[in-house]
């Protein structure tokens, strides 16, 4: 091999590796750290066996929306793992209550009777019902009729007799549809009503929503606050829903949502709508609120003309309207109905909270171990292989630069994270890559022992050594790929690091080590003294440098 060509090739490889790393660092990209290295919160949720993949995907989407709504979470990672699990990683979040709230309640969907609607957006009906002044407002009559109502129906104000007493027994009538009987309304029975204690005195909203009791809940879109009764149906009573154009009572041109119910659910729905239909069309109690996670999504009215026999579950549609933006609204509602309360209940399988300081400590420990390992290996190779050890050290730096570059690059573009297991994988790969040098250098020694000149040994030795390196690296790479495809959690991070390192090892051997050694053997370090390659392969230092040519 030509000395000049060898030098240029080795230098180009080195420059490319360092250049790539430099460019990445200059661009501000660093490896994306896994949760265990920067602190955060991880939850693994498991759905029952055989849950549809679509459902899982949808659940992931809903959770992502909720976490985004939560704010302050940088780069949440939510993904389906395995057949029926969802893994949620919230880096930087260490407040377990907040984190669990974000993903814990997986869509509590219920259908509840509306009892009362707040007079104005943002004003809770609770004050009127308990005869109190809403805070921050000095309207003495709480209700200004007709004003502030932007929804389709008028709202009756709270009857004065109810507004004056602390509790409003007459307000809530028991609707019992658990048996699915059409005569589910029992005007005589009175439900126990939540007391004012359960309400935030400033907002007038229920603090902790219990679907088995009544509650004051917000509809975020309109700002209205609804007083709703206990749940009549839950998400489990629904089997699906779709958004359609052109059906329903508004006739052609309107968007409707068409829910479908389970057999049981259908009966409950018929009973519930029958009970609601006993109220006047202007009465808020003729409405049912669709409640998701403690918020009212929509509160349609049971249409005029529906009798106390209730709505047929197969014919029911929820009319949204004909506007352009109402398509989205209809689709959102259908999504909520379909997936809001997932037919499968997720169980928390594994919760992990890593404090930020533990993450830092782990990262530091990993770095110390990695750098320490590199230095030790470099020293050992230098001591044993002398001049050849210099090549190994330069090669290790190329290897390290490329690995750091790849992790930064893949972290930035593909979201590949570097976890603690990944750090361990890298530390292990230092051993594997240094083995490539050892295989090659031992091969050179052997070729020399078999009578070749040092130069011939360096050039010929590479061919045989590279074959061994390829074979051995192939086994490592197989392992890494299979681990990545088949394993879960931490093992994946390890496999990524090991796989990348193995590929880089082959690249460095072919594009750097080979040329660098070919160059070095043609310099004074090739055969000048005990430190030279000649010395390292165990030949007596040549007294006459020309002797090496022989």
């Amino acid at each position, binding site marked *: 091999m030509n000395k000049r060509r060898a030098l240029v090739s080795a230098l180009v490889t080195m420059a490319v590796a360092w250049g790539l790393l430099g460019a990445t660092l200059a661009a501000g990209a660093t490896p994306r750290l896994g949760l*265990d290295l920067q602190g955060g919160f991880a939850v693994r949720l498991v759905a029952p066996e055989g849950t549809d993949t679509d459902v899982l995907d949808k659940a992931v989407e809903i959770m992502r929306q909720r976490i985004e709504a939560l704010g302050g979470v940088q780069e949440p990672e939510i993904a389906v793992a*395995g057949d029926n699990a969802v893994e949620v990683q919230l880096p930087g979040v*260490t407040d377990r209550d907040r984190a669990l709230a974000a993903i814990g309640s997986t869509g509590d969907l219920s259908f509840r009777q509306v009892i009362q609607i707040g007079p104005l957006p943002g004003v809770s009906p609770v004050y009127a019902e308990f005869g109190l002044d809403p805070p921050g407002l000095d309207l003495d009559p709480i209700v200004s009729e007709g004003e502030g109502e932007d929804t389709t129906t008028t709202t009756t104000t709270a009857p004065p007799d109810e507004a004056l007493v602390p509790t409003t027994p007459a307000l809530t009538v028991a609707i019992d549809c658990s048996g699915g009987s059409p005569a589910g309304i029992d005007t005589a029975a009175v439900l126990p009503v939540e007391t004012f204690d359960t309400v935030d005195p400033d907002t007038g909203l229920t603090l902790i929503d219990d679907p088995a009791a009544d509650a004051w809940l917000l509809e975020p879109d309109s700002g209205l606050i609804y007083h709703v009764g206990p749940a009549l149906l839950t998400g489990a009573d629904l089997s699906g829903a779709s958004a359609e154009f052109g059906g329903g009572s508004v006739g052609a041109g309107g968007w409707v949502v068409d829910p479908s119910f389970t057999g049981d659910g259908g009966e409950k729905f018929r009973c519930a709508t029958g009970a609601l239909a006993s109220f006047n069309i202007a009465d808020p109690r003729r409405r049912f609120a669709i409640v998701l996670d403690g918020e009212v999504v929509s509160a349609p009215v049971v249409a005029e003309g529906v009798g106390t026999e209730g709505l047929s579950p197969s014919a029911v549609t929820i009319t949204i309207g004909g506007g352009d933006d109402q398509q989205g609204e209809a689709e959102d509602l259908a999504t909520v109905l379909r997936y809001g309360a997932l037919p499968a209940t997720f169980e928390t*399988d*594994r*919760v*992990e*909270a890593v*404090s930020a*300081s*533990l993450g830092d400590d*782990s*990262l*530091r*420990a990993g770095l*110390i*171990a*990695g750098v320490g*390992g590199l230095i*030790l290996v470099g020293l*050992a*190779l230098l001591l044993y292989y002398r001049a050849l050890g210099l090549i190994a050290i330069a090669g290790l730096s190329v290897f390290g630069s490329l690995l750091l570059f790849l992790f930064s690059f893949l972290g930035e573009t593909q979201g590949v994270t570097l976890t*603690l*297991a990944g750090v*361990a*994988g890298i*530390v*292990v790969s*230092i*051993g594997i890559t*240094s*083995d490539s040098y*050892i295989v090659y250098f*031992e091969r050179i020694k*052997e070729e020399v*022992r*078999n*009578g*070749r000149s040092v130069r011939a040994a360096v050039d*010929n030795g590479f061919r045989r050594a590279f*074959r*061994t390196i390829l074979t*051995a690296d*192939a*086994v490592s790479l*197989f*392992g*890494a790929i*299979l*681990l990545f*495809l*088949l*394993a*879960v*959690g*931490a*093992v994946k991070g*390890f496999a990524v690091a*090991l796989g990348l390192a193995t590929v880089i090892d082959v690249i460095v051997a072919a594009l750097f080590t080979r040329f660098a050694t070919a160059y070095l053997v043609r310099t004074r370090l090739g055969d000048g003294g005990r430190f030279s390659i000649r010395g390292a392969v*165990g030949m007596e230092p040549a007294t006459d440098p020309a002797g090496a040519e022989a």
Partner: protein
Amino acid sequence: MSIFARMYQGTTTFDFVGNRNKFFRVSGAMMLIAILSLVFLRLDLGVDFVGGTVVEAANPNGVSVDTLRSDLSGIGEAGARVQLTGGGDGIRVQTTELSEAALQRLVDTVAATAGVPAAEISSQEVGPTFGAQVAESAARALVIFLIVVTIFISIRFEWRMALTALAALVHDLLITAGLYSVTGLEVTPATVIAILTILGYSLYDTVVVFDKIEEQVDILGDRQTITGIVNLSMNQVLMRSVNTSLTSLLPVGSLLFVGSFLLGAATLREFALALFVGISAGTYSSIFFASPLLAIWKEQEEDWQRARRRAERRRGPADAGEPVADVPLQVAATAVAEDEPRPATVTGATPRPPKRRRRRR
């Protein structure tokens, strides 16, 4: 020349195959201990496999295990397993699975006792199904990996080598698992990763050694017995094995060292320990277990039996299987000729090599 100089030169003449019974006895004894221990002592499986809760915190005030334990029994967690980690800088409490409220109480108690804010406490709660999934996925990965590797080695080398490599692998895994069982160390997902790595490493090492054997078979054909060839190969590859083990163990040792003395590196330490043992076992097994095994197995093949008979006729039966001092010299002579077109006299003078691989060249 001193023994070290000879090792450096790769001209040692250790009789690896001839002393195989000693090595097999060592390996056998270790595997037996491992199996007995695995059967009777079992493995101490961590929370990730059996479910449970782990709470970890820093220990800035140097609270003792006893103090913690008594505080914990105050909230009804007397059965908790309390450990100091990172050389006393950290606290680790492990309990069975807890309810939300009980966990909160545990976190608060540990925070109060250790004198750190509750947000600085790391916790881990694992349901009983998670471990089963991890174990299942690891086992599935293992089986498929073994099948693929067996096929790969069978194609690249031959099926006997593949099976021998697998035997060496089982040897290494048993010894590592045995160590965990004997010492009662907890098995964590990090351990599983480490074991999967050992798997890769053990095969890698065996592949490198077999590559050497195959090469010598190509060079020497059947002018040597397989036992002689394996011995020669082992002596030549010995330094590579020693060096590779050394350079692999150095970073792992660095992990082990850092992991034992720094907080936050408990995972690294668990990982490093299994690796340390596994890599050592892997190096041992590829030289002292897999290779002699391969030699005695291949010795049964008809071609190699013929080669042995010829060698005995040439040199007398006494030293047919023994490596002889002049073997490396003999290699030297042939190896130089190797890359050139083989002189007709060499091919003509020796019997036809038994290996079909010879023809590829």
